């Protein structure tokens, strides 16, 4: 079979990710735009990925959309749920993965994979931004920091200022109260990360923790959250280099499987 290019678009709530896959095996290009569903993000991510690979849309056999904006993704040939796509992407990146934790912009998911990499069970958080990327964005704004600064600040902490609230709105008030008390910022950031970890760990434990545990989604880039979650779950967590692109990768694999079935 000649090289077949499949493209996966993961249109999330806060970012748009695009990845082009060659014959289901080799990543040709990828792009990430920090603008999600309902914005120009999906179109820009698609254009950037095609540009990087030196391709045109018509060179791509199938475009598969996933994520919250999948239904309205321009130019998609078909859609797949982000849960299935993260499972496929995580298995591609770390084939031995059995538990996948995906924390995205506005939700968290725990996935259980069988040894063949098939999704066999999953849980999603409730309709609440606590413990998600949005939660970290809100907290970073209160601290007048960038989300990308949080991991480094967490690493500097020598203690922890616990945040008890599980609600984003209440937690924001709690963080402001702590700031008013003049607590150490790194310790406060560590407390914020721990609150995300506690919430996520309860979701993962409800599903059942089977090692190896792999983390995908944008929040996986935050080493502070990963460390806190490792501590909560009492197990090491592996973060693939393309963690944030796992959904788009899974969508591209989904497209590849579709092409293979048709042939």
């Amino acid at each position: 079979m000649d090289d077949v290019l499949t493209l996966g678009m993961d249109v999330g709530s806060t970012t748009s990710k695009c990845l082009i896959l060659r014959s289901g095996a080799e990543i040709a290009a990828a792009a990430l735009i920090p603008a999600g569903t309902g914005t120009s993000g999906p179109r820009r991510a698609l254009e950037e990925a095609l540009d990087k690979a030196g391709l045109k849309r018509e060179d791509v056999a199938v475009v598969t959309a996933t994520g919250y904006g999948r239904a309205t993704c321009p130019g998609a040939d078909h859609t797949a749920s982000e849960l299935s796509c993260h499972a496929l992407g995580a298995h591609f990146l770390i084939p031995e993965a059995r538990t996948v934790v995906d924390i995205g912009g506005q939700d968290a998911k725990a996935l259980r994979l069988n040894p063949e990499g098939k999704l066999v069970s999953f849980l999603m958080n409730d309709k609440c931004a606590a413990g998600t990327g949005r939660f970290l964005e809100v907290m970073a704004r209160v601290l007048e920091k960038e989300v990308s600064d949080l991991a480094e600040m967490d690493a500097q902490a020598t203690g922890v200022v616990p945040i008890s609230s599980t609600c984003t709105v209440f937690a924001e008030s709690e963080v402001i109260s702590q700031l008013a008390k003049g607590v150490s910022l790194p310790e406060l950031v560590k407390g914020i990360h721990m609150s995300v970890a506690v919430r996520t760990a309860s979701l993962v434990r409800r599903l059942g923790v089977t090692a190896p545990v792999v983390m995908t989604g944008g929040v996986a880039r935050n080493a502070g959250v990963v460390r806190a979650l490792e501590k909560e779950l009492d197990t090491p967590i592996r973060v693939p280099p393309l963690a944030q692109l796992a959904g788009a990768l899974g969508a591209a694999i989904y497209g590849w499987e579709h092409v293979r079935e048709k042939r």
Partner: protein
Amino acid sequence: MEKPENLLAPFRALCRNPGAQLDKVLAEGKKAVGVLPYFCPEELVYAVGMRPFGLWGAELECASSGRYYPGFICSILHTTLEMGLRGMLDGLSAVMVPTCCDALKSFGPNWKYGVGAIPVIDAAWGQNRKTPAGEEFTRASFRRILGRLAELAGRRASDAALAEAIAVCNENRAALRAFTAAAAAHPEAVSPADRSAVLKAGFFLDRKEHTAMVRALTEALNALPESRWKGLRLVTTGILADSPALLDILGESGFAVMDDQVAQESVLFRRDVPVTEDPALGLARYLGQAEGCSVLYDPGKERGRELVRLARAAKADGVLWVMAKFCDPEEFDLVPVKRMLEDAGIPLLTVEADQQSASYEQARSALEAFAEMLRG
């Protein structure tokens, strides 16, 4: 013979606007009694010549009921109280309110304080519903309620009238069992939302009228050629599974409901009311024999065993638990029942729902993923 889609349309219309049905009943000069879940016998209302009107909440924003309830309470009660406070239920002669869960215990007092003009008939029965003492307690309780209803109706409550009402409702139960079997055999003709509308309409219609409509539909379904439908087979469980938006997502994701263990649906008609010399005793025994509902005292969790049996009998690909938000009895049941399903190798998806959900997009993701997972 009429086509099934034409016969389904009136059920959907009724469920879109149950208030119109109440207005119609009242305009005809009849008296109506609101019946809250769970297991308040409609037969008692029919026996005194009044019309029961099911109160299972509604999909509406709660503006006034927030004075009486916090946000985190069962949406059936929240929205039913809201309907009462807004005057949407004016004209009811009473509301019958059981006390079989903690949230319901506070409903009667809140209603009395907030709505006032429509009296509350408190309904209580023995939690030990299967023992002779529990049966007697429930029988006596139903007799007391019948007496109160007779006062409101201004007529005598006879055993013959109660036995006749039981016979009418049992006929309706049999018709609904036949319909759910026909719907399972023809998912191409009956969507999950259609199935729900047919069952739910019975709470707003006269049961005799409902039975006739359901029988005509069942006959039309049974006349269809053998189905070639190749979708995914579900058994649902929970308190309510009647949100049209959620049910449309089910259909769009390729699912059909083969059977259910939903408190508003088959739990009420899986078994008939036994015919006994004292008809009130038959109603008490019906409650004793009921299974599959989290508000029933069920120490051995027969609910889980029944759900496994139903899923196997329906050759279900999986079970969908429509988890009523903020419902403690349902949350308590989830843990042991989930384990029973896991042990039986039956995949389970839990989707949280309430009647104030503006969007089911997260549920859509979960249902689509469940469908993809089941298809392998």
